[in-house]
Structures are given as C-alpha cells and as structure tokens.
C-alpha cells in the first residue's frame, strides 16, 4: 500500500480545514500559493514543476491545529508535507504526491527565554539570525549557523538534522535542540528529548526518541515547538586563512590543527583546487591571488578573549607548519564574515566556452573521514568532468571540507562538491543524467566508508535509492518504525524509498 497522489482537494475538505484553522487567509487553495511552495534551492526538475505542487496549503499557529489537520489527512488518506523555510538543499519540503502542505512560518514565537537553566523555547517557524538578534540583549546566543543562517528556520533544521559552521565548538542542531514537541503521523502530540524533561540535556530513561525524530525529513510528523540551548555570547572571534600550493599539505595542516587540542576551535574549512579556481572568477579576495595558490585552509576560534588570544598564536604556527602562507588580516576578517552569503552564493555558472550562465546549486554533502578525503576528491572530480563534457549544462564549483563532529574538530568532515546546473535546459534525458551523476558521487562516499549526507538529508533522487545500502540492517528497522508510526503513509510519502515499508 502506498499513498496515492492528491493534486486537488474537494470543497468539503477545504471546509473542514477552514473549520480547524478558524482564521481568514490560513487555508490557501490558489495556484500561486501552491506553485510557490513547490521548490527548494536543491536542483529542481523545472520542466515538471506542476507535479510538485501541493493541493492545498495551511498556515497553522498551534500544535492543536496541526494535530487536527493530520487526523483529517489520516481519515481521508491525503498526503501531508511540512514546510518551514523551504531553504533545504535536499527536497524534503517538496511534495511528491500533492496533498496538504503544512507551512509552519506563522509559528515563529519566542515562548520563553530561561537564563537560569539556559534554554530558549521557540516555535518551528523562527529563523536563527532573527532569534539571535533578540537574544543579544541577554548576552546569550543560539549557535546553530549553517550557510543558510539568515533564512533557514528551526523546524527545518530539526527535520534535516542540520550542521553548523561552528559545530566543532558548539555542536550541531541535534546537540543544540534539547527537546521538541512533535505531532505524530496519527495526530498525537508528544514531546521528545534524550529522555523526559523539557530542559534536560542528558538522560538514560527509555529510548532516546529525540534522536529518532531528529532528521525525520517530514516523514514522521511535524515539529511544533523546540527548546534550544543557550550559550554565552562569545567575547572574541578570530579567523585566519592559509594558502598552499599542494592539496596534500593543506590536508595535513587540517589534521595538525584539529588534533592540537585547541578548545576554542569552532571549525576548519579546506578548499580544493577547483574551489580556488571557482572563487578566482568573482571573489575579490581570490581574484588577485598568485597562481601558485591551489588550496586554502580557513580556521576560526570563538570564546573568551584570553582564550582566543592565546590560542590564535598557536593556530598561526600550526597553519604554517606544512608550508601554509597566511593570507592577511583583511581576508581573515572579510572572508570569514562572508561565510553565509559566499557559501550560499551560486548562480553565476560558466559554460565550457567560459561565458556566464545562470545555474542552480547542487551541494553534495557527504560525511567522510579525514584519511579518505584525497581519494574521494580525485574520484568526484573525475565524475564531474565526465558529466560536464557529456551534457554541457553542469559546472564544477569545487570542494569544501568542513569539520563535522560536534564539540570536537577531528575525525570526520562534511565534504561537499558544489555542482552548478542550468535548470532552464533540463529535459527528461538530462534530468535522468543528473540523477545518475548524483548517484555516482554518492556511491563514492559509500565506497570509502562515509555517509552520503552530513546535513541535507537523503531524500533527493540519486541519494534516496542508496539509503538502504548505507543503513544496512538498520534499513529494515526504519521501515518497521515508519509503518508503525504512520500506518497510512500520509507523512511526506514517496521520500527515501520508505514506500517499501508498505509493500507486503
């Protein structure tokens, strides 16, 4: 049994939704409301837009409303797709079978700031930058900062189990969300944490349900409230970039920095040769760089001023130990501050003749161990070259490798290869080519013992087919959980091959 697509809803269902919502303008059936909630920044089959529209959109304000909507959907067997910011680099918030879209942007309240036990409780529709603007006056900070920091919303961060640029110092979304409220696929409203306790960070009671629902991609319910960690606002930050003429030297430099024991180290970023080539096109810090530069290591420290000041001296030595050259204070300050915009700044792709073409951004986000990065880089680059040659609508924007572990900078890395796609030129053949391209890249990650996604999720075509392979025996457990919690397969159906849960 799988859920059938529902691309239109009848007047009776709209009337029921309106009765649940009881607010003018909160049940939207117009084509503009539906068309504008079909895509996210992940590559989109533009030529098949209409297939990805929800049938109806609701804008709830309370968990009770969400619960009633889900109960209705169960009764009439209509798919439900939650949407927060719609900024994911996966397509979790893209409907595959129409249905009811539950858009949580109106649930953006700050319910409580608890400075004694150090939490803030919010709705899923709040953005982290906006939250931190409010928190500044209390001297505290919620340090979940992806490249989409100015636009992604807390609900989506939980649904994707997000990654933060400062995660090695402060943790990632799963570490920073203490507990959350979720409406289950059958409509019950529950709160999940490590154990019980809304503000308890460590527990050994029961199963750790927070971790089950973290990264649910909308397939196990809708988050309606979250209690988040508050950390002291950093007194000082320090950033430094080091340039190399050899990727191996840069790669070893990262090892030296992350194993140094510097506790204020918030992250390192390794840039490969194609990335430098890409940045030389339009980034004012890279345009004037001498030709020998083909790799960069970027680093940043956050903490109290005495800690950061002392650690920065150590960091400056470590950055140079394998031949790195400091790129100067101006770049350290300017380029670190541009990390959100620049790292999310696609669009200006280049065709083979060098001319500029408008492209969409695919960001492969594997989790890889340090040792395998050089091999993976070679294989990914070769795959990209092959597809660029064949289709002429792709562009290789190079690789970043970011520290990926929480509260510690060593071990594994979020390795991303950024690929530009000229979506306007997509047809069925080139879209199929793109999915193969994506799949080949993901298979390399699996071949080297990695995970195909560190933070975006595995719902994309080209990833979804590989989830069972990565999960091994755990895949069967996932299917049982899915079928138990969502007996009618209404929550975000069609994602991650989870339809298999209902095939028997």
């Amino acid at each position, binding site marked *: 049994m799988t859920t059938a697509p529902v691309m239109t809803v009848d007047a009776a269902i709209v009337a029921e939704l309106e009765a649940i919502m009881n607010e003018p303008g909160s049940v939207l059936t117009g084509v503009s409301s539906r068309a504008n909630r079909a895509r996210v920044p992940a590559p989109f089959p533009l030529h098949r837009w209409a297939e990805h529209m929800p049938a109806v959109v609701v804008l709830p304000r309370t968990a009770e409303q969400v619960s009633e909507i889900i109960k209705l959907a169960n009764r009439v067997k209509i798919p439900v797709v939650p949407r927060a910011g719609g900024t994911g680099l996966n397509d979790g918030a893209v409907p595959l079978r129409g249905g009811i879209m539950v858009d949580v942007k109106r649930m953006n309240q700050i319910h409580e700031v608890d400075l004694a036990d150090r939490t803030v409780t919010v709705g899923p529709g709040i953005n982290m930058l906006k939250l931190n603007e409010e928190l500044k006056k209390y001297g505290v900070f919620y340090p979940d900062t992806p490249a989409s920091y100015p636009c992604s919303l807390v609900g989506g961060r939980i649904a994707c189990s997000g990654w933060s640029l400062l995660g090695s110092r402060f943790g990632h979304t799963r570490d920073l969300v203490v507990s959350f409220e979720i409406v289950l696929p059958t409509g019950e409203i529950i709160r999940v944490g490590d154990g019980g306790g809304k503000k308890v960070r460590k527990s050994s009671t029961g199963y750790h349900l927070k971790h089950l629902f973290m990264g649910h991609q909308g397939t196990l319910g809708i988050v309606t409230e979250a209690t988040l960690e508050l950390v002291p606002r950093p007194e000082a930050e320090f950033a430094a970039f080091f340039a190399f003429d050899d990727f191996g030297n840069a790669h070893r430099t990262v090892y030296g920095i992350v194993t140094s024991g510097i506790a204020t180290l918030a992250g390192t970023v390794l840039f490969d040769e194609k990335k430098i080539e890409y940045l030389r096109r339009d980034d004012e810090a890279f*345009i004037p760089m*001498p030709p020998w530069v083909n790799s960069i290591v970027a680093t940043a420290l956050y903490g109290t*001023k005495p800690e950061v000041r002392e650690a*920065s001296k150590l960091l400056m030595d470590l950055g140079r130990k394998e*031949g790195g050259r400091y790129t100067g204070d101006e770049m350290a*300050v*300017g380029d670190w*501050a541009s990390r959100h915009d620049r790292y999310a700044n696609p669009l200006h792709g280049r065709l083979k003749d060098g001319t500029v073409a408008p492209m969409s951004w695919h960001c492969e986000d594997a989790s890889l161990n340090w040792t395998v990065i050089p091999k993976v880089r070679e294989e990914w680059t070769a795959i990209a070259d092959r597809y660029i040659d064949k289709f002429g609508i792709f562009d290789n924007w190079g690789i970043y490798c970011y520290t990926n572990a929480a509260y510690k900078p060593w071990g594994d890395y979020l390795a991303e290869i950024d690929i530009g796609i000229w979506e306007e030129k997509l047809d069925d053949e080139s879209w199929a080519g793109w999915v193969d391209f994506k799949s080949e890249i993901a298979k390399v990650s699996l071949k080297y013992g990695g995970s195909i996604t560190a933070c975006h999720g595995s719902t994309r075509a080209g990833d979804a087919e590989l989830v069972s392979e990565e999960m*091994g*025996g755990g895949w069967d457990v996932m299917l049982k959980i899915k079928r138990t919690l969502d007996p009618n397969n209404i929550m975000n159906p069609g994602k991650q091959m989870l339809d298999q849960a209902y095939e028997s």
Partner: protein
Amino acid sequence: MRRFVYMQQYVRPEATRVSDGVVIRLKHYEVDPELMGQQFDQQDMPAWDTLRIVDDRNDHLNWMHEHFADETLVAGQEAELDLGAGQPSGEPYPTLSEVSARHPKPILPY
C-alpha cells in the same frame, strides 16, 4: 553630499584586464563584459548603485562580526602570498587504513 548628475552616473570609464575573465574599473573588480550577454545580461547600472552595493557589503560584513562576538581579533600580520609557497615539515602523518571503515554487510532477517 552626493549630487545626482546623469552624465556622471551613466558614462563609464575604460576597464583594464587583471586576469582571465576579470577586469578592473574605478579601482573595482568586474567580470569581463565579453563573458556576459550570451546567457546572462548585464544591466545599465549607474555608478551610485555599484558604490552603494560595495559600501553595504562592507557594512554587512562588519555587522556579521558584531552579531557573532563582542570583539574581532586579528593576527596583525602581513599577507605572505608574495613569498610563494612555504616548505612542509616532512613529518609523517597517519595514512588510510587497509581495513575498510565500512560496516560489514547486513544480515537481513528474511
């Protein structure tokens, strides 16, 4: 005080090439206009708009620093890129293990 005068806004000085694909005009990097116009058009941007974007970008970057920490520290050292690449230490580093880090194949219950 800025005075808006049409001819000062829309007449652009000649550019100098600085690299493949990049020119410099008014001490400011721009894409080589020859790479534009085939699939991606340039706009008739007045001078004030270019300057405004540059100023706002710098202000925004400063804002980001202040948003994340009370104070931004720097090394206080010159850029070293003119020296060419440095010498690696030659120290040994761990290498990729022969034994795969992957989980063993699952034993499925059916």
